[in-house]
């Protein structure tokens, strides 16, 4: 899955997701990516979030919606992602990550399970080139 959040020069925000889904899935299976609030969610005057990982598990918790709701309460993007991930209950080891961006350009991420999770950011105030950011899960 790719999940993207953008804040444009006019102050508008959008999220986009695209995926080919889990390999060897049962035909007809759909994961979290195309579900609003699960794979991605955004509110212009607050911020946006996107998810990646085990869609079958993550989509049950509407994690992107949760993150934006935490942002609405004034919680920072990294902490918002961490709190949303904590809501997932799983008896088995699972893999998931959330990335968030506020309408002021603050960004953050949190993850579970991955040994090496990295996301990318590009903004004029961070070198005007794509930056790869590693996150410890």
């Amino acid at each position, binding site marked *: 899955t790719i999940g993207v959040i953008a804040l444009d020069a*006019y102050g508008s925000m959008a999220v986009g997701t695209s995926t080919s889904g889990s390999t060897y899935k049962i035909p007809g299976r759909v994961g979290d990516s195309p579900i609003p609030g699960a794979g991605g969610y955004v509110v212009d005057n607050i911020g946006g979030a996107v998810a990646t990982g085990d869609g079958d598990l993550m989509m049950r918790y509407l994690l992107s919606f949760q993150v934006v709701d935490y942002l609405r309460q004034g919680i920072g993007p990294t902490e918002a992602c961490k709190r949303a991930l904590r809501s997932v209950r799983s008896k088995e080891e699972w893999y998931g990550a959330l990335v968030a961006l506020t309408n002021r350009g603050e960004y953050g991420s949190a993850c579970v399970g991955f040994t090496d999770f990295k996301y990318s950011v590009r903004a004029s105030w961070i070198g005007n080139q794509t930056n790869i950011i590693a996150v410890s899960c």
Partner: protein
Amino acid sequence: QSPIIIVNTWPFSNATDAGWNVLSPSNSTLFGSSIDAVVAACTNAEDDPNIESVGYGCSPDENGHTLLDAMVMDGKTMEVGAVASMPDIRQASQVARDVLLSTKHTLLVGPLAAEFAKSRGYKPTSLDTSKSHNLWIKWQKNNCQPNFRKSADWVPDPVTSCGPYRTNVSDINSPKLKDQRIKKLDINNHD
């Protein structure tokens, strides 16, 4: 002017750059929209054969076919366009944007999502490639492992064997299956 920024869940630099080039084009003073930026980033990833979780030619299902899911959400209008389990159309995120911009719906699924795409001018092309076919062959040779079916509910056992699978009749009177049948009988139990 608002701060311009784009964030992507993975270190796909080319995709992030593609979105950035829409938000802040180097050869124009006109800034692009956030919707077009996220679609450009996703489209770049969909076209990149090296990205194995996005776009055509990867993630074959049990039948060996690739199907695509995509979603675009506008934070200003709260409108959403999405497609799911869509065959034959490579530009999944662009079709999702078309659902958002040209319809009052949110999510189109399956072959009919592809029909919608064709009606919007997208050219149908198989999403399967020799790479995805080889992945599927390899899976079959490995007794169809890993497998998303729960062992006790199917014959043959999906933990050890490939399909075609059918319901495990010896398990049909289990409480779980009884509950499922009761739920199915509820005429009001639908979307």
